[in-house]
């Protein structure tokens, strides 16, 4: 009557959860400030999601194989790219340009607003917008290649 793979949101849960556990667990770390906290959260989220995506890639056996498709979310037409590719593109960008890669990390993985990103990186929101624009164009192109 039911499909083989029931919807299971506990997994997404576990993700958020673990990220959270580790973050609040470091409460004694004396976050220098909120910006610092947000930056760590973004870094953490990136690692967890990319780790998970990578694990999923390794797990391609059996009918349940699931490529982590970002197609919907990224709206890259006719081309499935994954978080792992995005992560390595982002690493490549970091070598060229640490700041712009951090803008992407904070905005995309951390879900930070332009203003928050600006505060974390101590740059103006205008610069964040410009960085964001260029970084996205660059990443999009790289992912297409």
């Amino acid at each position: 009557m039911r499909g083989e793979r029931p919807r299971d949101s506990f997994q997404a849960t576990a993700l958020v959860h673990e990220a959270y556990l580790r973050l609040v667990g470091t409460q004694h770390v004396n976050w220098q400030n909120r910006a610092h906290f947000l930056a760590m959260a973004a870094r953490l989220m990136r690692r967890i999601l990319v780790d998970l995506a990578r694990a999923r890639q390794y797990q391609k056996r059996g009918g349940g194989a699931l490529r982590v498709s970002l197609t919907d979310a990224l709206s890259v037409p006719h081309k499935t790219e994954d978080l792992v590719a995005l992560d390595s593109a982002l690493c490549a960008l970091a070598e060229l340009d640490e700041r712009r890669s951090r803008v992407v990390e904070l905005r995309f993985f951390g879900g930070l607003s332009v203003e928050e990103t600006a505060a974390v990186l101590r740059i103006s929101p205008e610069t964040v917008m410009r960085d964001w624009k260029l970084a996205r164009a660059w990443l999009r192109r790289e992912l297409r290649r």
Partner: protein
Amino acid sequence: MTPERWQQVSRIYHDALARDSRERVSFLREVCRDDEALQQEVESLLAEPASAENFLGKPALAMSAGLVDDPAEPPLTGQRLGAYHILDLIGVGGMGEVYRARDTKLGRDVAVKVLPRLFSADRERLARFEREARLLASLNHPHIAAIYGFEETAGIHALVLELVDGPTLADRLQRGPLPITQAVRIARQIAEALEAAHERGIVHRDLKPQNIKVKPDGTVKVLDFGLAKAATAAANDSDVSPISTTSIDGTREGVILGTTSYMSPEQSRGRAVDKRTDIWAFGCVLYEMVTGRAAFAGETISDTIAAILGRDADLSKLPATTPPGVRRLLRRCLDKDPKRRLRDIGDAQPDLDDVGSIPATESRGRTTWWTPGWAVVLAIGVAIGGAGVWLTRLLPRREVQPSFSRALRLTTTPAHEFGPAISPDGKWVAYLSDARGPTDVWVKFIAGGEPANLTASIGLEIQVRSAIGGLEISPEGSSIAVQAREKGSRAPTFDTWLIPAPLGGTPRKFVETAGALRWSPDGTRIAYVRPGETRGDAIVVADADGGNPRDLVAARGGWHTHWPAWSADGRFVYFFQTIATWNGEPSEILRVPASGGEPQIVVHTTRRALFPLPNVNGGLFYAANPNGVDLDLWWLPSINKEPQRLTTGIGEYAEPRISSDGRRLVSTLIEYRRALVSMPVVFEESPRLRHLTDGFGGDLEPCISLSSGRMVLSSSRSGNRNLWTADENGTNLRPLTSDAAIDERPSFSPDARQVAFVSDRGGEHGIWVVKSDGAAPRRLASTPVLDALTWSPDGQLIAYAVPGGDAPRLSIVGVNDGAMHKLPTPNGGHSPSWSPRGDVIAYLEPRGPGRTYLKFVSSRGQVLYSRLPDGPALTNGFLAWAPDGKRLAAVGVPGSANASVWIVEPESSEPFRKLIEFSGEVRPRGITWSRDGSSLIFGRQEALSDLVVFERPE
């Protein structure tokens, strides 16, 4: 592309964007002149459509539901489930789908909540859930939505609930605040519901507007009472895990997580919760009803939590008409300290009644809150903080894989907690902590209560380095073994002492010069480590009384042999060996028959594989970092031998220990702060340290070039450990290498044109050389490298240390021909530092516990200087010549004392002068002189650790 080139590209890109599209072509042609590649690069970036606005437009987590969840399955609509005829899907939540259904027996409509299959596949968990549901079903109150029963048909498990029509309070609040009298009317009913539940000892744990329904007639029903706990926590656990649910709201751009907003501070800290958590949430709900905005909100989960922990609810946002009773009540409910918070929800009623003095002049307008097609919020049941980390749910299930359904943070102090051991019955944990200042043995019961200090007043000084073995609890649970020595003892070694457990008492010395003691499972034998520092440690097996000792594993020079662990059947002793480098890479896990024999490798890696922990039901836990910088817990099944990772994220999981029934596993979770720090070479009481980088980039191992003034360092700021260059003051950081391997311990050639470093590229440790612009990396030699690389002043040779038979040895490799030869030194040595002013190599020569010589030798092996310092312990240390070649910085990282930095002037009458001694878990990693010789720059590594308990339900 170089970063400079990239800067050029980005400048032109933005300039071009500022022009309209017709102008762009000519603009580009003009600025790029005939640099076609440049023009193409910019054009290809400009060609990326601006309409691709939604590329990366949603935060990663907003789509994580799609990432981890499987495609939706066909709903149950139209099916029959026992006596229930499923009508339509009315919601999807963390606990599963919710349907409206017809109870054909009783002729009424009900809500049916179908549990996810993953959940219902676990019989034990299901049984517990059912027990919990029955308890909740006994709650009978007009303002609590009733639980009718528990249905199981054809493998589907469902809760049958009272169907409450009407929008939720959350739906209503989307349209703004409520008039005061209405808010109070609702609050009063919520308070009544909470009071009834609290009287029966039931805590909601997840009170929020989404869980509160307001019927068209104004009656309030609180939903999902206690379900969060039922879904996750063990029913018999008194240290109940705090629970909240978090929604991933896919409908609003930019919003990752909605509803962590109602968590209490203690909940968000992962502490135990009680009814006062509900009182906090009640305050949040009341605040939101009155103001129309969440008391604590942020766009991200971390943001929200920062708000909950960090600031008070803004009471100035309350409308002027808010009655004083409500203000007072909000203040009392939203006190961050649960001890000062409103104690009893019953006490809220008088404050709510205080509203009577306010003229009730609100409009009698329609109160139809029902908005058809209300958004189905994909509520994901997150058991936040300390509760269920579904560790193994991230992995494919294997029959033998141990699954732990939740994690609990056992300690959360700012102190350093480590070296845990768990009692055989899994009820308490013994661990080391410096919470009092000096390191003590503490015991904490997992069920709750304050930790007890067992060694505060018994005259023992505890060995503070944990990685050798931590604590051990005897099989019958009556003693704790700890490595220690009598207070005031100057002995360079520590013995193993026994302390009565779990309450403490008079200690007795058990085995001399021994650590990491482990009893065999049947209690008849012991295994322990006889430490030998850089010369290598031995593993000894003896009878349970310490008699009849025999060496099971011989010492290996330059390797640490630590952490013996008996297999469950007592036939093998597992242990790990790590090369005595700064980061212990490479390392391996081995095992040896307890009756004697050749050790066999169990896990081999170019990085670290540590802390073997044979599972009681077969298989092996251990900590490793095959793909990263930090250790995670891994599981090696005994059947198919495919290792599986159990944890992810930032920080290192180390020192796992398990209870004898395999139900509880305790582990140390270490956070590292690694930063570059500068320190003037001035002898004063408290040296002025200055951080050049913050502790989060993982910066270590600095080396400043005397000719260029640039610094090269290793850093994990990109996520992997690579080499970076920077100015002498730590600014202007640029990546030098970016390989997926770990690149570390860099050293500038004297002319600053090349950098030598150690790397595990190609799965093998070796010495590599790269040009200082990052070009042409090449392998110079395949060899393990113990610690530092150091160049000869003419740039032709590099000296380093390798592990050897009974002691580490010095070696030299030619930079041009890669030819390696041993440097003849009588007793071996490590940590070479070549003087920039001549053929003098300083190194350390370990001769036994607490006895490390400082020696100078020429590259032909002629000994020029030899001294056993009586003050400093240079054990496990390293050296750096000052630019003038007359002084040295010497760092000692002994196992038995704090790390310290010394300035050595060989010709002086007082050759060793202490510059600084570090406290606790601070260790320097790599040291270099500023070009003018006035200060030292070093990598400062500090470990902060807590204990985490993973738990598998019965």
